[in-house]
C-alpha cells in the first residue's frame, strides 16, 4: 500500500470542507463518536441534515467565526492507499497556507463552483500549483446539482480551464463533475450525471500513478548529522546520517563531497543499523565513505558524474509568508534542508501577479502572500538544483534573524 498526499483548494464557498467531509464519510473513515459530535453541533446550528463541513473545522476560534484559519491535516485510507489531505483555507489572505500545504503534495484538487466557473481564485490556485510543480491536477466542478447537472455548463468550464492549464503548462489535468453535498461522483459513480464516463473521485485518487513523482535520476544527499558513538566496540565508527533527497546510491559509487569538492567512494550503506547494497529516495540512511574527510552537517554527498550547481549568488522566486514585509538588503538565514547559511536579499526584480502571471514593478516592500523574482547572496556557496529539475534539492526557506520566523518559501531557479 502506498501513500498519496493531496491538497484541496477552492474559494470560500466552493464546498471544500463538504467535499473532504464527504470523502471521509463515504469511504467509512468517520467513526460513530465523531458522527455523534457532528450531529450535536449540526443541531446547534438548527440545520436539518448533518453538516459534513463541520468535520474539518478544528479550533473553537474558527467555529465561532465559521472560517478556517490554518492548514489542517486529515488522514484516511482505503484498501488501496493511505491518504494525507492538506486542508488549506481559500481566503485571499491565506495564500501562504496553501503554499505550505501544497509543498508536499503529489496532487491538488481545485474546486470550481459550477455556477461561477473559472474565477480569479481558480487562477490563483492553479498558478500556485504550477509554481510549486504539483505533479497532478484534478479540477472538480462542484455543485453540479445547482446547475441541473448540465453537461453544457460543465463543458464550458472545461474549455475555460484548458486555457489556464495551457498557459501555465499544467500537464496532468483531470476533470470531474461532482456534487459534494449529495455525494455524486465522490466514492461511487453518479447515476444522475450519466453523461460523465470517467472515474469517481476516490477511484481517481486511488489509481493516479505517483511512482514517477520522485526524482530517481539525480542522486542528492545532505548530511544531517555525523554519527560517532566513540565507544570501545565502535571506536572508529563514523557514519553520515541523512535523507536521500533524490536518486539512488550504491555501495562502491564514486562520490564527491560538496562544496569542498573532494572525491571519494561509498564504502558502506546502512538503514536503521542494517547494511544495504543500495539506498534510494526518500529513505533515511547512513553513508560511510572510503576516505577520512572533514565533513559536517549540511555538506552534500553526490555522485561524481552527476553534480548539482554550486553558487553563492542565486536567482530565486520568493513567496513571502510573513506579516513583516521583505526589506531588500536585510539579512536572513537561508535554510536549504539541513544547511543553514547567512543570506542577503540583494535585488527584487519583479513581482508576479498570482492572478494573471503578469510581471509587475515592485514599488514598496514585498508583502505577505506576494511572489517575487529576486537575487539572493549567501555567505558560502550553496549546493543545489533548480526547483524545475529537482524539487527536493531546489527548495529552501528564509528565516528572519531576529524573530526566527519562517518568512519565505524559496524556489531556486
Amino acid at each position: 500500500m502506498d501513500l498519496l498526499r493531496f491538497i484541496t483548494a477552492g474559494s470560500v464557498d466552493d464546498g471544500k470542507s463538504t467535499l473532504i467531509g464527504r470523502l471521509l464519510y463515504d469511504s467509512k473513515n468517520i467513526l460513530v463518536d465523531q458522527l455523534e459530535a457532528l450531529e450535536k453541533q449540526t443541531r446547534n446550528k438548527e440545520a436539518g441534515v448533518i453538516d459534513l463541513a463541520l468535520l474539518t473545522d478544528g479550533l473553537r476560534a474558527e467555529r465561532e467565526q465559521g472560517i478556517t484559519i490554518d492548514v489542517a491535516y486529515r488522514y484516511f485510507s482505503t484498501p488501496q492507499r493511505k491518504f494525507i489531505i492538506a486542508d488549506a483555507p481559500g481566503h485571499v489572505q491565506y495564500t501562504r497556507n496553501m503554499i505550505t500545504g501544497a509543498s508536499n503534495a503529489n496532487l491538488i484538487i481545485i474546486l470550481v463552483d459550477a455556477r461561477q466557473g473559472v474565477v480569479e481564485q481558480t487562477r490563483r490556485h492553479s498558478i500556485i500549483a504550477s509554481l510549486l510543480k504539483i505533479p497532478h491536477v484534478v479540477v472538480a466542478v462542484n455543485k453540479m446539482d445547482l446547475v441541473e447537472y448540465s453537461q453544457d455548463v460543465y463543458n464550458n468550464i472545461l474549455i475555460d480551464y484548458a486555457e489556464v492549464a495551457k498557459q501555465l503548462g499544467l500537464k496532468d489535468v483531470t476533470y470531474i463533475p461532482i456534487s459534494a453535498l449529495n455525494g455524486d461522483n465522490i466514492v461511487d459513480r453518479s447515476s444522475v450525471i450519466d453523461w460523465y464516463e470517467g472515474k469517481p473521485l476516490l477511484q481517481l485518487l486511488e489509481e493516479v500513478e505517483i511512482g514517477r513523482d520522485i526524482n530517481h535520476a539525480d542522486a542528492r544527499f545532505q548530511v544531517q548529522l555525523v554519527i560517532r558513538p566513540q565507544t570501545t566496540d565502535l571506536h572508529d565508527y563514523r557514519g553520515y546520517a541523512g535523507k536521500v533527497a533524490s536518486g539512488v546510491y550504491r555501495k562502491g559509487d564514486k562520490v564527491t563531497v560538496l562544496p569542498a569538492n573532494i572525491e571519494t567512494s561509498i564504502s558502506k550503506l546502512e538503514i536503521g543499523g542494517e547494511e544495504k547494497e543500495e539506498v534510494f529516495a526518500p529513505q533515511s540512511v547512513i553513508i560511510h565513505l572510503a576516505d577520512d574527510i572533514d565533513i559536517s552537517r549540511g555538506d552534500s554527498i553526490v555522485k561524481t558524474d552527476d553534480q548539482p550547481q554550486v553558487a553563492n549568488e542565486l536567482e530565486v522566486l520568493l513567496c513571502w509568508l510573513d506579516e513583516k514585509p521583505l526589506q531588500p538588503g536585510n539579512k536572513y538565514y537561508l535554510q536549504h534542508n539541513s544547511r543553514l547559511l547567512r543570506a542577503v536579499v540583494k535585488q527584487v526584480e519583479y513581482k508576479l501577479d498570482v492572478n494573471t502571471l503578469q510581471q509587475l514593478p515592485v514599488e514598496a516592500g514585498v508583502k505577505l502572500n506576494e511572489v517575487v523574482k529576486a537575487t539572493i547572496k549567501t555567505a558560502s556557496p550553496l549546493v543545489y538544483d533548480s526547483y524545475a529539475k529537482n524539487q527536493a534539492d531546489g527548495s529552501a526557506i528564509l528565516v528572519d534573524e531576529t524573530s526566527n520566523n519562517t518568512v519565505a518559501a524559496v524556489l531556486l531557479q
Partner: protein
Amino acid sequence: MSKYHLDYLEQLEAESIHIFREIAAQFEKPALLFSGGKDSITLVHLAKKAFAPGRIPFPLVHIDTGHNFPEALAYRDQLAEEVKADLVVRKVEDTIKQRDLTEPKGKFASRNWLQTYTLLDTIEEFGFDACIGGARRDEEKARAKERIFSVRDEFGQWNPKLQRPELWGIYNGRIHKGENVRVFPISNWTELDIWNYIRKENIGLPSIYFSHEREVIAHEGQLIAVSGFIQVDDTDTVIKKRVRYRTVGDMTCTAAVESAAATLDEVINEITAARISERGETRIDDKVTEAAMEDRKKNGYF
C-alpha cells in the same frame, strides 16, 4: 511498479527518522517525553533506529502522575535499560506539594491537567529546548493543525494563529532563549499505522494492551478499572470483564474496552473494524468540553 518504491509504513518511518535527526542536530538539550503508551514506545523505537549504532542522544522523560498502570511503569524501566537511555522521572505528586496546588476532586479525579505544571518545571530544571512527543494529528481536532516543530513561548503556550509555515521537509527550530519547541515525529501516523508498524517491527508492548481479566465499573458506557485512584460508590457495581486498553494514560482517565484480542493480529483486526475513535472510546477527560484539547495545548500541555 518501480523497484525504488517504499510502502506507506516505510515512508512514515523514513520521515520520522529524518525528524529525529533534525532534532538532535538543531537543539542543545532535547528530551523525549515518555508515557509508557504505544505511541511513545514507537517513538523510542524510531529514535533507536535514527541513531543506531550509537545510542539515543537524549533522555527519556516521564512526567509521573502517580496514577499509572503498574504494568506501564515496569515496561518503562525495562525499555530505558534495554536502549541504554537516561531516564528522568518527575512526579506530579511533588509538584502538588511544592506549589501547594489544589488537586481536582470527584469520582475520577484526574491529575492530567496538573501534569502541565510538572512538565514546565522539568523543562526549566534541565533547560530542555526541545520536547519530543508522540502526538498524532489524527487523534483530535486541535492536533490536526499542529506543526511537526511547534514553537512554545516561555510559558509553554501554543498560539494556533502564530504557527510557522512548514514547507517541504524543512524544519525551522530556531528559538529565542526561554522558548522551547515541541516536536512530534509521528504527526502523520494514524492509530492503525502505529499498530501495523508495531507488528512489522515486532515491538514489545505492556501487557495491558492485550486482553486480560480486570475488575471494572461501568460508568456512562465506559469501563473504568477499579484502583486506589478512583472513587467507587455504593451505586457502582464492580464486575469482572475481559478487557484491554486502546490507549494507556492514567488509570483515572483511561477507559478499557471489552475485548478478547490477545495477540497483535487480533488487536489490529479489532481496530480495523472499530467504529469509534481512540480518544472517544478511551479518554474520559476529553468529553468535558468540546474544546478541551485546544485549551490545554494553549496552556502548555503536550
